[in-house]
């Protein structure tokens, strides 16, 4: 979404994760932990999406609002970006995907109903903190214009939409924020989420029961 919204020229290299496309020796040379995403520019290689966004924002002199140079504005974005990993991701979107989809259906590892319920509760707790401490009364995270922090949050929180979990349900602030992000990103939002919704239909069908959220 960031590359497209800023007209940064790039060559997409699609990796089929389900077929172990990220486990090749070739990809290991680009991303040693064999995780996605990664970028390569000549000899320069970089993994970790947050680091990638910070690098691109700087290198391509994108409009300031994406990652403001003002110290205080930037601090607010950085606060979110660090909190994101173990909260929005590991006590949020990714945890839910792990317990409802990746473990039971792709790795064939049994997950108890208790564990799944705990993942939903963790997501709810994270959403409460997200609203209260990061969105507050702002239009976006930490301010009134979209930033790389919003992109990271969208990535994790909207992923679960394909399973029928809409994080804006009962949370008008989150819903309004989501709509603002969609508006700010326009067609780039739809393009980036195409695959998710295509794969999502199959994932949702594989659930043993609709998720109570």
């Amino acid at each position, binding site marked *: 979404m960031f590359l497209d919204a800023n007209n940064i020229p790039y060559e997409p290299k699609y990796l089929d994760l389900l077929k172990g496309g990220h486990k090749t020796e070739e990809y290991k040379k680009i991303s*040693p*932990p064999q995780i996605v995403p990664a970028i390569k520019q000549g000899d*320069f290689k*970089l*993994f*970790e*999406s*947050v*680091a*990638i966004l*910070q*690098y691109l924002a*700087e*290198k391509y002199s994108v409009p300031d609002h994406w990652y403001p140079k003002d*110290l*205080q504005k*930037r*601090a607010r974005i*950085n*606060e979110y*970006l*660090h*909190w994101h*990993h*173990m909260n929005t*991701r*590991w006590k949020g979107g990714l945890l839910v995907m792990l317990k409802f989809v990746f473990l039971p259906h792709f790795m064939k590892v049994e997950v108890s109903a208790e564990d799944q319920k705990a993942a939903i509760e963790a997501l709810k707790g994270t959403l409460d*903190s997200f609203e*209260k*401490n990061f969105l507050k009364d702002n239009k976006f995270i930490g301010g009134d214009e979209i930033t790389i922090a919003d992109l990271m949050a969208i990535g994790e929180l909207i992923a679960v939409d394909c399973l029928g979990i809409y994080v804006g349900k009962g949370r008008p602030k989150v819903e309004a924020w989501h709509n603002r992000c969609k508006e700010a990103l326009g067609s780039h939002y739809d393009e980036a989420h195409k695959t998710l919704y295509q794969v999502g239909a199959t994932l949702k069908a594989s659930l043993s029961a609709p998720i109570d959220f």
Partner: protein
Amino acid sequence: MSKIDFYSHLASQPCRAVQIFLKMNNIPHEYHLIDLPKEEQTSEAYLKINPFGKVPAIKDGDFCVIESMAILQYLAAKFSTPDHWYPKDAAARAKINEYLNWHHSNTREGATGVFFNAVILPKIRHQPRNEEAITTAKTKLSAALDMIENYFLEGHSFISSNDISIADLFALCEFSQIERIGIDVGKKRPNIKAWRERVIAKIGSHYDEVHETIISFTKRIDLSTEPFE
């Protein structure tokens, strides 16, 4: 310039990283002990500073910053600290950011996972040891150490760099925590062993000062060496 208010307890790994940075850069600050054993972090007064009730936090005038890495990114810019701490060059900075972001669910999750489950849970909270959680954390820690040994330190004297940066402080302070239960991260990993010695040498006398709290804290508890390969 007025002093930075620094809210901390030095039993915490990220607090130590921030403290080392403040000292090494002579940043004027006022230390506010947040008494973790007495749960001061959940007091109404502190929650106004950090609504998550965690340490560290700083206050620069009226402006609060939470999340230890965001704190150091802010201080490095505000005080124009020597470039090596958080380089301005986009590519060099990207490499430090790569480590910082990877650290959360790798180095920290592994090392803190071991310490929490082997020390805090059984010795402080008097709950039974969760062997499964310890094994999982050790596996995570081992993988993280391998990545640091073979990638982040490969061809560099410090993490992704040839000079010390904030990335090194965060890694070092996770390792000094598990050192209290006899885990020597450099035992089978020569790059890490040499790196650790280099970082401690750079930090100098601040290293021992900053570690006094965790050393005396763990001496008061009956701790045995935690097996780790």
